[in-house]
């Protein structure tokens, strides 16, 4: 992130070796961008720093400046609900991203076979994405509620051995959230992947057909590597959804049964507002922030800043 000093430095730097007109043009661009720099600085950098500072204070309902060292973090990591939240978000993240990518890819491949009514199917598959997580959560809550949904249907037609009551079992409820999440988001992945597939050169397909390579091998060894940027885009979008997962849990299980489906986002919101413990909540959000930075930095470096050995 830039500070005003470095921004000014950049202006001077770029101006150094260029012509007067270009200099002027650059200057006006930077002047135009200046408010944005200030907003970024205040809205992101300062608030992040402030948030980290508050997590080292004894703030309860109000933020106060009484320094208590790492007390909030010690408490955080001995709180069963926080540990459980972290485990849940990791498990949810892995299953959700993998599920969406696989299902989205398969749907895209299926639609790419020049099927009839492709537009209709595409709309149907993409439709869940148009709904908010709240609606998705409520729908799945009803589907999986043993006194309203699938279980009741199964019972009423005599299949009492079928168990669709995952949502009320504390060790299975998280999978309902994963299912709901995949149902909601795989349509988006499909749309992105389909665009990627359409970008694959038709000549390539002709060539592989002449060589007699089976279609699944073409997908696995040629198409998927070509789709790599598409897959990365989809994964980033899904990963963001994982970090901020909140409404889905709230609407589907409310964090229950008990506290079995709690996630960090809900922990932070609850402690920030309902529970009047700003210190602990900012501690939790700092942990989330640092985790994301640790995970994202190597990837950003790998994708954008590494010298790429590109021969062809």
């Amino acid at each position, binding site marked *: 992130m830039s500070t005003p000093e470095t921004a000014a430095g950049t202006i001077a730097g770029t101006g150094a070796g260029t012509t007067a007109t270009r200099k002027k043009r650059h200057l006006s661009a930077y002047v135009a961008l200046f408010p944005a720099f200030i907003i970024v600085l205040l809205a992101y950098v300062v608030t992040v720093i402030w948030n980290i500072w508050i997590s080292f204070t004894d703030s309860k309902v109000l933020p106060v400046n009484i320094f208590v060292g790492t007390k909030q973090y010690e408490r955080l990591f001995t709180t069963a609900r926080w540990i459980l939240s972290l485990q849940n978000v990791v498990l949810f993240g892995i299953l959700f991203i993998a599920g969406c990518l696989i299902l989205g890819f398969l749907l895209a491949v299926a639609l790419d076979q020049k099927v009839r009514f492709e537009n209709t199917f595409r709309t149907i598959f993409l439709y869940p994405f148009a709904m908010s997580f709240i609606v998705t959560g409520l729908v799945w809550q009803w589907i999986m509620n043993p006194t309203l949904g699938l279980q009741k249907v199964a019972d009423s037609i005599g299949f009492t051995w079928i168990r669709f009551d995952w949502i009320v079992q504390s060790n299975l409820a998280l999978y309902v959230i994963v299912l709901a999440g995949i149902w909601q988001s795989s349509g988006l992945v499909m749309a992105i992947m389909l665009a990627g597939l359409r970008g694959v050169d038709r000549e390539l397909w002709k060539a592989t057909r002449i060589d007699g390579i089976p279609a699944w091998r073409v997908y696995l060894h040629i198409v998927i590597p070509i789709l790599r940027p598409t897959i990365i885009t989809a994964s980033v979008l899904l990963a963001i959804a994982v970090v901020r997962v909140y409404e889905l849990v709230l609407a589907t299980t409310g964090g229950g049964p008990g506290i079995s489906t709690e996630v960090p986002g809900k922990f932070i919101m*609850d402690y920030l507002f309902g529970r009047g413990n700003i210190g602990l909540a900012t501690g939790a959000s700092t942990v989330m922030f640092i985790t994301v930075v640790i995970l994202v930095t190597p990837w950003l470096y790998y994708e954008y800043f590494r010298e790429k050995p590109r021969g062809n």
Partner: protein
Amino acid sequence: MRGLLMALVGATALIAVGVTGAQAEGKRAEVLHWWTSGGEAAAVRELANAFNAAGGQWVDTAIAGSGSTARPIGINRIIGGNPPTAMQFNTGTQMNDLAQQGLLRPLDDLAKEQDWKSALTPAFYNAIQYQGHIYGAPINDHGQNWIFYSKAVFQKAGVTEEPKTWDEMFAALDKIKAAGLIPVAVGGQPWQLQSMFNSILLGEGGKELYSKVWKDLDTDAVKSDKFKHVAEVFAKLRNYQDPGSPNRDWNVATGMLIDGKAGIQFMGDWAKGEFIHANMVADKDFGCILGPGESNFMMGGDIFVFPVLKDKTATDAQTLLATVIMSKEGQLAFNSKKGSVPVRLDVDTSKLDACAQKGLTALKDPSRQILAPDVLTAQDIVQTEQDLVAQYWTTPSMTADQFADQFAQVIEQAK
């Protein structure tokens, strides 16, 4: 009221309660609160009318959702230098941080002049104080440890007498189960589970143990055999719920009693609003028990606090509002619509319903009064224990010993 959806959907709806009369020159008071359901809004209107009649001008800032939505909005406004004239809080420790920072107006003079001390029960008089100063004007008293039961279901199952002990209660629940009905309408949200647990702690564990746990935060009491016995009684109730209980809202659970599907529900007296709305009469269509075991009344409620204001007329409006809130007429008018009972002991309550009468009888005896955990202890501790109670309820493999140990650990950490 605590519906999560409500909290999400109604972010900051500003609902104007009709300001009657044309006294634009009256003492203007902007009042921030979160009473937005039908019965609640009707109760607020009573209070607003009383204030306007006394020469004030009520400006209504109602925030839909629950206290956890509205409270941060109000607190932010106070910190941000744009405080409302008065703001709702729940009775107890919620106001302490603001009082500590000197953001609330002390009401000591007013309380002395109007003799609030003799009008209130000692427990409530203490609950509106922070470090010896009075900061809140209390408006109502909600009983939180009621067990409501459906008379129709009891009759169908052949339960003729109101259970007085937990043994009798379990016998009754077994009969209901045998009759093919749901014995306990459990709302499996953490706050409801904890309310159920506290109700058993107070009834079966007794007032002494309850105070040691919630008032003194005494870890020895938490590790005592009596506490573990309470935990076992609570755990035994798992066998009497139905599979649909997780994440069920409290009013849906009350609906199960109204429809004659379930036998009993542990809930505060706001549930009466649902019964009354379904045209059911207290002690005729549904019954109410304080207990079983020791029959104490767990008190919670709402207060108004008054942020420090520089403007003299606004301060006068605060004084007038506090006076109206503490008036006998204001208390009766508000509480007859709200389902709660007045905090003033000297109000004529003969017109309140049969369950309210039961509660009032308990309230006349100071030894049967006890404050709710939210009043006694910081929100932080109460709600962290709430997670634990919910975890215990949904983890049948957790023993009462483990539960007690972890309960004590939470207290140690948060102290």
